[in-house]
C-alpha cells in the first residue's frame, strides 16, 4: 500500500509542479518590454544571457565546424565525393548541430547561472521582500530572464552555424585543398531556405524556450538552502539537456521524417 501511496504522491507533486511552471511561463509571456523600465531590465538580462554566452558559442562553433570538415572530408573522399563536403557541413549544422549544441552550451552557460541566481534570491528572501513592497517577482525577476533567453537562443544558434560553416571551409578548403567554389555552390544548391534554415530556426526557438523555462522554474522552486541551490542548478543542466535532446528527436521526426 505504501508503494502505491508513494506513486500517487509523486504523480500529484509532478502535476502540481508542471502547473506551477506553466503559470510562470504564462505570466512571463504576457510581460512585454514596453516601458523604459522594463526595457532596462531586459537589456541587462540580454547582456548576461546573450552577450556573455557569445564567446563560448563562437569558439565551439568553430571547432565543431572544423571537426565536421575533417571527418566529412575523410569519409567522403573514400567515395570520391569530396565536393559534397559543403552540403554535409552546412546541413548538419543548420538542421541539427547548430540548434542542439548551442542549446546544450546555453543550458550550461546561461541556464545554470539563471537557476543559481534566482535560487539564491529566494534563499536570501529577496523574492519575499519584493512581494512585501508590492513588486511581483515574476515580473521583476523571472520575466526579463525568460524573454532574454527566448531572444538570445536563436541568435546564438545562428552565430554557431555560420561560424561552423566557415570552420568547415577553413579545414576543407584552406587546409585540405577542396575547391572553394564547389564547397559553396554544392552547399547552396543542397540547403533549402524553408526546409532547412527555417526549421533550424524553429528548433532553436523551441530549445530557447525549453532551457530558460526549466532554468527559471528550477531557480524559483529551489529549496532555500545552499545544498538546495546546488541541486537545482544540477537539475537545470540535466533536465534541460535531456529535454533538448528528446524534443529534438520529436521535432526532427515531424520536420524531416516523411
Amino acid at each position, binding site marked *: 500500500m505504501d508503494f502505491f501511496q508513494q506513486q500517487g504522491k509523486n504523480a500529484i507533486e509532478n502535476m502540481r509542479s508542471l502547473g506551477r511552471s506553466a503559470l510562470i511561463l504564462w505570466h512571463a509571456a504576457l510581460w512585454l518590454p514596453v516601458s523604459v523600465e522594463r526595457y532596462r531590465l531586459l537589456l541587462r538580462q540580454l*547582456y548576461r544571457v546573450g*552577450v556573455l554566452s557569445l564567446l563560448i558559442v563562437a569558439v565551439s562553433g568553430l571547432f565543431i565546424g572544423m571537426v565536421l570538415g575533417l571527418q566529412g572530408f575523410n569519409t567522403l573522399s573514400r567515395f570520391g565525393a569530396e*565536393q559534397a563536403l559543403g552540403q554535409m557541413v552546412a546541413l548538419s549544422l543548420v538542421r541539427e548541430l547548430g540548434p542542439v549544441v548551442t542549446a546544450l552550451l546555453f543550458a550550461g552557460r546561461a541556464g545554470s547561472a539563471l537557476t543559481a541566481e534566482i535560487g539564491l534570491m529566494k534563499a536570501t528572501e529577496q523574492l519575499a521582500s519584493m512581494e512585501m513592497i508590492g513588486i511581483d517577482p515574476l515580473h521583476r525577476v523571472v520575466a526579463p530572464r525568460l524573454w532574454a533567453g527566448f531572444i538570445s537562443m536563436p541568435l546564438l544558434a*545562428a552565430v554557431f552555424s555560420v561560424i561552423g560553416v566557415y570552420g568547415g571551409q577553413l579545414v576543407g578548403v584552406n587546409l585540405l585543398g577542396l575547391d572553394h567554389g564547389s564547397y559553396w555552390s554544392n552547399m*547552396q544548391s543542397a540547403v533549402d531556405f524553408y526546409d532547412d*534554415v527555417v526549421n533550424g*530556426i524553429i528548433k532553436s526557438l523551441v530549445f530557447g524556450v525549453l532551457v530558460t523555462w526549466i532554468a527559471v522554474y528550477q531557480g524559483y522552486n529551489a529549496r532555500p538552502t545552499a545544498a538546495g541551490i546546488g541541486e537545482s542548478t544540477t537539475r537545470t543542466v540535466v533536465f534541460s539537456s535531456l529535454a533538448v535532446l528528446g524534443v529534438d528527436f520529436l521535432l526532427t521526426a515531424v520536420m524531416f521524417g516523411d
Partner: protein
Amino acid sequence: MQAKHLEIAVGLFLVVGFFAFVVIAIQVSGLNRDYNSDSYQLTARFSNVGGLQAGAKASSAGVTIGRVKTIHLDSDDYEAVVTLAIDARVDFLTIDSIAAIQTAGVLGEQYISISIGGDEEVLVDGDEIEDTASAIVLEELIGKVMASFSK
C-alpha cells in the same frame, strides 16, 4: 556610462545575431538566386531531364550565366519544359544555341550547358531554345550496355 556599455554590447550582440541569420539565408542556403531580378527567361524542351532540379545552374563554356527556374511536364507532347532565367548581361545567345543537360563529375549535380551557335539573330525574353540534348541517365546507359553484352 555603465548603462551605455551595456547597451552597446547588447546592440552588437543583436546585430551579430541577425547578421548571422542573413548569412545563413543568403550565403549558405543560396536564397539570393531568387532575387536575381536582372534576367530574362528562355524555355527549352527535353525528352528527359534526369535529375535536373529547379535552382540548378545554366552555364556556357563553364561560366554560370543563369539558373533553372521551373521544370514542368507538357500535357500535349509529354516533354519536360525547362524555364531558364538567364543573366540580362548575357544577351548574345544566338537562336541556334544548343542546350544540353550535363553532369558535374560522374555522380555530381546536373546542370544545363548552353553552346552558343553562329547565327546572327539572338534569343530574347520568352524564346525557346530549339536544339536540346537530354540528360544521360546512367542507369539507362548501363542497361543498354548490359543488353548489348547479353546478345
